[in-house]
């Protein structure tokens, strides 16, 4: 019983950590998904699903897009589609591009130093 409780707790803190990690990366992931051109919400979601390991909830991505727009990192425009209804496309602004590059630099530095630190552990989990 005691062991079970502890397992459950470890499991939960582990899950929470992963959720936080993913969420923290989401902003950069969205900016990156727009790097090579404009996309609408569902395209961004599909891009994130196929090219990253981020399991993103739609209810998180749309409000985040709206925030990025308020912050001036992306702009949006409505474009008519073949589907018969317009779609809202997002594109990076110059400020958004700068921010994406800056975040990428930080990410690269962080992940390489973490990689060094974790190298001995990585061998164990292989």
């Amino acid at each position, binding site marked *: 019983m005691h062991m079970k409780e502890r397992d459950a707790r470890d499991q939960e803190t582990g899950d929470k950590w992963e959720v*936080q990690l993913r969420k923290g990366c989401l902003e950069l992931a969205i900016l990156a998904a727009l790097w090579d051109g404009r996309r609408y919400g569902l395209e961004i979601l599909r891009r994130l699903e196929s090219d990253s390991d981020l399991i993103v909830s739609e209810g998180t991505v*749309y409000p985040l897009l709206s*925030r990025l727009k*308020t912050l001036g990192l992306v702009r949006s425009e409505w474009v008519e589609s073949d589907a018969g209804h317009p779609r809202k496309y997002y594109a990076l602004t110059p400020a958004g591009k700068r921010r994406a590059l800056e975040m990428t630099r930080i990410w690269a530095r962080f992940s390489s130093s973490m990689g060094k630190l974790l190298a001995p552990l990585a061998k164990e989990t292989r």
Partner: protein
Amino acid sequence: MTMSGDSQQRIDAYFGQLRARLRGIKDEEVREIVEELRSHVVDKASAFGEVTPAGVDAALAALGNPEELASQYLTDNLLARAVVSQSPLQILRSLFRWASFSVAGFFVLLGSLIGYFFGVVFILVALLKPLHPHTAGLWALPSSSGDFEMSFRLGFGVVPPGGRDVLGWWIVPIGMVVGCGLVMLTTHIAVWFVRQYRKSRVTPQG
């Protein structure tokens, strides 16, 4: 694109609920949010050529319940807006929203209201002094205990006997500088608190 009445009804019901909970955001923006999500739902539900009720249900379920979705929009948007705009009205709007679900927000709102109130009083007195040269200003009035009490007077009505205009015409430059300074200071402090709050809530809910 064809859609059964049933599917349409489900979509309308969902967005009716969402719209009702997006209070505090401008109508125009609410419309845009709803239109964008509606087009998302239709796109998703029509992956196989036709919009089916089951597809609609799945797409709506993936968006989450309207209440949670609206709260993400409200918090994210209003706080981001307050930080970007630096306009006292926008900041107060955001703070009202923040105060509605957090004690910390309530106190920041209270402090900001007091700061803005005094800022506006200083500016008002400075502006009204030229109109009411003999009655507006910062006055020392005799109080019942024999002391003086300071009082801002906008110049409407008469000054009680024994009152003294402390600053005279100096109230105009001093009032403007102190008033504008207070408004700016309050704005900066409020935005600072909002930023701290945003940082603290990178992800409280999973």
